[in-house]
């Protein structure tokens, strides 16, 4: 006859998955409206964009990919909408091969409905491989580093590119982080005096924090929570805000599971039968 702590410790993991999915799904279908805490770094990123003079030239490195879409696409929409509200001229580039799909989607689904004209207000540069090398070349000679847009048109034929002569013309570099793109931006773009802001998946938060503490990154938006906070700051609740109740309940479910697991483990050790769920 097994004890309660043995049964709890050896609970079928699939039951935990069911609890988690139900915990996430219910608040998605029926939102609770839990309060949202705005991180100072999100506020700093918002402040950096908000302080830009209207019509500033901004480079947007749209490195979203299918694996990071859930976390990064909402921030691309929210921060991109803010840039558009500031009437910024946006040069979009992508440092990874799979980023152009989302860069193209940003132009079609976000910029164009807000009145931006391709070529005049926004342009998407061709993809070139080599993250650090490309940014190094762009920092040194932004006109020479790329010659075509993603459709193959000469950049010299696009009005939005006429205001770009040197890197000093760029008033902000906004990077959606993928792998080493933030490190490359901090190493290659920030030393030129162009302020760098970033949006990243939650996994990258510990890597970005030292750069923010040293001022090399002016602000960053992390994960779904950061995107939801940004949506709240620009007063445009979107997909991230909709997911935040689920995120909180999900964390609660995981927290409860961790506590129950530890109680079962502790009780098993005290009873002298070893930890429930121990690997023998």
């Amino acid at each position: 006859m097994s004890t309660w702590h043995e049964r709890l410790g050896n609970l079928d993991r699939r039951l935990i998955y069911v609890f988690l999915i139900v915990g996430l799904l219910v608040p998605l279908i029926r939102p609770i409206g839990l309060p949202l805490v705005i991180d100072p770094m999100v506020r700093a990123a918002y402040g950096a964009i908000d302080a830009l003079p209207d019509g500033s030239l901004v480079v947007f490195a749209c490195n979203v990919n299918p694996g990071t879409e859930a976390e990064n696409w909402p921030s691309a929409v929210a921060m991109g909408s803010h840039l558009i509200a500031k009437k910024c001229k946006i040069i979009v580039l992508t440092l990874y091969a799979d980023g152009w799909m989302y860069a193209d989607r940003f132009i079609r689904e976000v910029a164009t409905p807000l009145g931006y004209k391709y070529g005049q207000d926004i342009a998407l540069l061709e993809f070139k491989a080599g993250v650090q090398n490309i940014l190094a070349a762009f920092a040194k000679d932004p006109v020479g580093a790329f010659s075509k847009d993603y459709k193959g048109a000469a950049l010299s034929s696009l009005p939005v590119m006429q205001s770009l002569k040197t890197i000093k013309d760029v008033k902000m570099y906004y990077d959606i982080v993928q792998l080493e793109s933030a490190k490359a931006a901090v190493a290659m773009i920030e030393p030129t005096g162009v302020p760098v802001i970033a949006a990243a998946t939650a996994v990258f938060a510990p890597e970005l924090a030292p750069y923010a503490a040293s001022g090399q990154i002016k602000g960053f938006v992390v994960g779904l929570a950061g995107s939801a906070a940004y949506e709240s700051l620009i007063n445009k609740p979107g997909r991230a805000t909709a997911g935040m109740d689920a995120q909180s309940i999900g964390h609660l479910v995981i927290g409860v599971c961790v506590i129950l697991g530890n109680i079962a483990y502790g009780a098993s050790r005290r009873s002298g039968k070893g930890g429930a769920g121990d690997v023998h």
Partner: protein
Amino acid sequence: MSTDLGVWLGAFMTISLYSVLFKENQFFEAAQSVFVGLAAAHTLVLGYQSIVQSAWQPLVAKGQLALLVPIILGLLLYTRFTKTHGWLSRVPMAFLVGSAAGVSVKAVLTADLQKQIVSSMTLKWSNPNDFVFLLFLLSTLSYFLFLRAKGAPGAVQAGVSVIGTWAMMTAFGAALGFTVMGRLSLLIGRLQFLFGSWIPLIK
């Protein structure tokens, strides 16, 4: 329910991939293989297009003979598959490593080392967090000092190292917490797709 075939396909692939949580099954294996195959094919096509557009076309159409150098260096990489000429692949590899180091060493040293050290040494003492930061910084560094002093200084050093251990555990815990948060966000994204685009239960 959605009438879009693409949405149905996306839903099928999503459910197939998550079905491994229940147990290993053929739907998961098939979906996994499709994703790996798609990613490999996508990368191959992009690589091919990149070579054609940035090397072959300018060489043939515009006569930019200098592009022969990177093309030949690129081809030399494949000599590693032969036993007799494998040594030739070291030439482009040396060029790749050397050029990457040349481009990035100074910039990375400045960004990741110099500016971080300066930032750590110029704390604003009005913020209590800076005291915690300094304590954790010094104690973590002391953990990696493998030379131990003798007597009382050694005992102090050992005590400080323990604080360093806790500092690192705190950092690892925060990193794990962010990872859990990230994975949950991915699951939420998929649920929003399944119950928003496929079965419209989410308004």
